[in-house]
């Protein structure tokens, strides 16, 4: 039997509770600060505006392109290369007096006057109203997902588990957002999808540990609650690391082979998975302890029924 994690003894995770809580509190505060101070670099999906991606047959002459675009009279155009010197990204903010629908045609026509070999790769134009709506519905989705999961946990487990699980997972979400804010990586609709997926994924993690805690509470009659939690985490450690490993392999594969379009999405997931493993073990469980989980919460007559589920 090949074992990467041969934990024979129960690891005293809960006795490190103070240290881990302090660490997560620090990272959490850092993330809040980054969000507060720098804010998210919202993509065109949310802010509205135009992003045009073009590719040229040889290294792009940015000053020439800039000059040609200035002649169109469109304000605040940013021109930059990304990836290679042949890929050029042109951004325009939304301006009320400009006919946005024609902007991309005008830009493309202007660029083609200096370099006819230009090939259009992608245009994203989003009106300000649409962007705002997406932003609102994104925030709403985040809330609904959070409450839906909490409700499920409260029904399947107990309210303490629901609150602890949710706090641990919001901690992950805030940290992803904080890292995106700190590095000013572009936050797009796809990244939002990634963040929401992390919310589901990370709860998944907590549920596995919670499940074991519930089982241990019923089984280990003499043990103290911290010991029960330690045992649950230790027993699931191997699985936690392997599952995270395999998910991370897929995500890294996306990060390396998925191309520009999936890059930030994969980044969000990478951070989410890294913090997901940590929070499910070292944030959710101490919180559970803090909320005062007792054996009596699970040793009830109704308990027999639940076992029948098996």
């Amino acid at each position, binding site marked *: 039997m090949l074992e990467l994690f041969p934990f024979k003894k129960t690891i005293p995770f809960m006795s490190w509770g103070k240290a881990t809580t302090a660490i997560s509190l620090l990272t959490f505060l850092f993330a809040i600060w980054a969000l507060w101070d720098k804010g998210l670099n919202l993509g065109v999906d949310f802010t509205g505006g135009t992003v045009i991606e073009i590719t040229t047959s040889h290294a792009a002459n940015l000053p020439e392109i800039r000059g040609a675009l200035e002649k169109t009279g469109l304000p605040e155009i940013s021109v930059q290369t990304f990836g290679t010197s042949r890929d050029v990204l042109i951004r325009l903010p939304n301006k009320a007096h400009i006919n946005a629908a024609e902007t991309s045609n005008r830009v493309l026509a202007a660029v083609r006057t200096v370099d006819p070999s230009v090939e259009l790769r992608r245009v994203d134009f989003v009106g300000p109203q649409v962007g705002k709506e997406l932003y609102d519905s994104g925030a709403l989705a985040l809330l609904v997902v959070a409450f839906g*999961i909490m409700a499920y946990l409260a029904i399947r487990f107990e309210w303490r588990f629901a609150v602890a699980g949710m706090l641990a997972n919001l901690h992950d979400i805030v940290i992803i957002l904080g890292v995106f804010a700190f590095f000013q990586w572009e936050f797009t609709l796809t990244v939002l*999808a990634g963040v929401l997926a992390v919310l589901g994924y990370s709860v998944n993690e907590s549920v596995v540990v919670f499940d074991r805690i519930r089982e241990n509470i019923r089984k280990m009659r003499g043990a103290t609650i911290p010991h029960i939690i330690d045992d649950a985490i230790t027993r699931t450690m191997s699985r936690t690391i392997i599952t995270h490993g395999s*998910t991370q392999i897929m995500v890294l594969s996306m990060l390396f082979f998925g191309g520009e379009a999936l890059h930030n999405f994969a980044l969000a997931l990478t951070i989410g998975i890294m913090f997901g493993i940590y929070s499910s073990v070292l944030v959710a469980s101490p919180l559970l302890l803090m909320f005062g989980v007792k054996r009596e919460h699970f040793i009830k007559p109704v308990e027999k029924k639940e076992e029948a589920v098996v």
Partner: protein
Amino acid sequence: MNRYPLWKYLLIGVTLVVAFLYTLPNFFGEVPAVQVSPVRTSETVDTALLGRVEALLKTASLPTSGVELAGNSIKARFASTDVQIKAKDVLQNGLGERYTVALNLVSASPAWLSTLNALPMYLGLDLRGGVHFLLEVDMKAALEKAAVRYQNDFRTELRGDKIRYSRISREGNAVVVRFATRDQRDAAADKLAAVFTDLGFAAEDLDDGFLLTARLKPEAEKQVQEFALQQNITTLRNRVNELGVAEPVIQQQGANRVVVQLPGVQDTAKAKDILGRTATLEVRMVDEQADPLLVEQGQAPFGAEIVASREGGKIAVKKDVVLTGDSITDAAPGFDSTSAQAAVHINLDGKGARIFKDVTRENVGKRMAILLIEKGIAEAITAPVIREEIGGGRVQITGMETAQEASDVALLLRAGALAAPMQIVEERTVGPSMGAENIEKGFHSNIWGFLAVVAFMTIYYRVFGLFSSVALAINGFFLIALLSMLQATLTLPGMAAIALTLGMAIDANVLINERIREELRNGATPQAAIHAGYDRAWGTILDSNLTTLIAGIALFWLGSGPVRGFAVVLCLGILTSMFSAVTVSRAMVNLTYGRQPRLAKVSI
């Protein structure tokens, strides 16, 4: 202990065969094809048309590898893109204007698969290239337009009943009629309220007159808006058909938006031009009494307005509209038989033809202007002198500069008018090369990730790891088969979701395998360990997957665009992984170990 009844194996076998069959079309790739569909969506395609298409291709001696009816269109497959393009021209010329002939790609999978309705996944625009537009209907303008119509109707009603009024004006969405006496106002209120039941009327007494204000009732207002949206969708559909795009998507989104997706469209400027045009046509009489000098200065006589003429200069036209574009049933570009000038031939419907006949009879010798109103600006295309009564509803307009212009005008007239102006609020264009690159990269990231997970699982859990890997591959098949069956649109985020669900799907097997190991460590016999492992893990698998499913459903419910594409795959992936990781892997384990009552050792 670890045995399945026969029906379970059979059930799993059947689902595997079905999944394999429906996954298969995705591996055949695509062949060039030409798609023929009617311009008017109300028309249906039948076998007679199929025969015509086959006959046309035969006479042109273009070899086809199959002509078939698919939905409301006919698709003909060809061996190469050269033949495809030739065939497109032949079919367009042979079938005429009533049909849209578009280049397309269809699945190369054999016919027997297609008859099973096994079709490849539908690729989103980000994977195949094309344009996505989100258009917003200006509802304020729709309501104002309705008010203008009521303004005219009031005038006719009141004149018909000989009720005197001093002025009818429009204030926003409301129509205000001013009267000199209260009796006139009350008489008018009774009359109008009886005729126009959709309107609510309010009377007001002022020092210098009596007012009657009419407003659409809320439910009628809603109806006007819905109607405007529906008419705009119809108009857009007609315009898109003229572009000759294969498989366009035109859908309502929310209360006032329309999504238009044009796969494979390269010339976005042309597409935007056609979609965004808000042209309407009006026929009005030229005001013959107007002083030409004042007209040149832009001063309109009472009851008339000044418009620019395409023939040069300005003309005064009466405000009363004789006919609108709504009465036009067909319009085709052509040439005037006498002058050989570019012209548009128009057919009018019955009511339009009658009005046109009356007006031309009463106004012989006078000029009639045909106005094209685009983006709120009216322009007289032509203002010919009426030589004789024109009956039968066949009208010819000349005055176009080029044949191209005549064809554009004809297109606009034929496609009909928009009930209210629309604005593009979102545009996403993906170049074809980028689409192909997205597919390739997305596919590679899935393959490499999958292989890495399989390698790890097999080394770590040996035989059980192999079972888990096979279950994971089968999960991939299930997921792709399900997506193909539902004909869900696969987008780049969708491909990301496939990768993510494959990564997460292994979790169930890890949970099971770890449990089995734990049972073995605690001294259980191998058979008991396998049994307990699957049983104990199931509760955890259910809990953890359901929470993720909750997230997926909320994403689908609230998300839009890429988020939704992601959510669909995530939800389906969770369902398939629960089945494949638990049931399919258990079947493999049972088949291998279940028959050995004294199993000494398992490879895990």
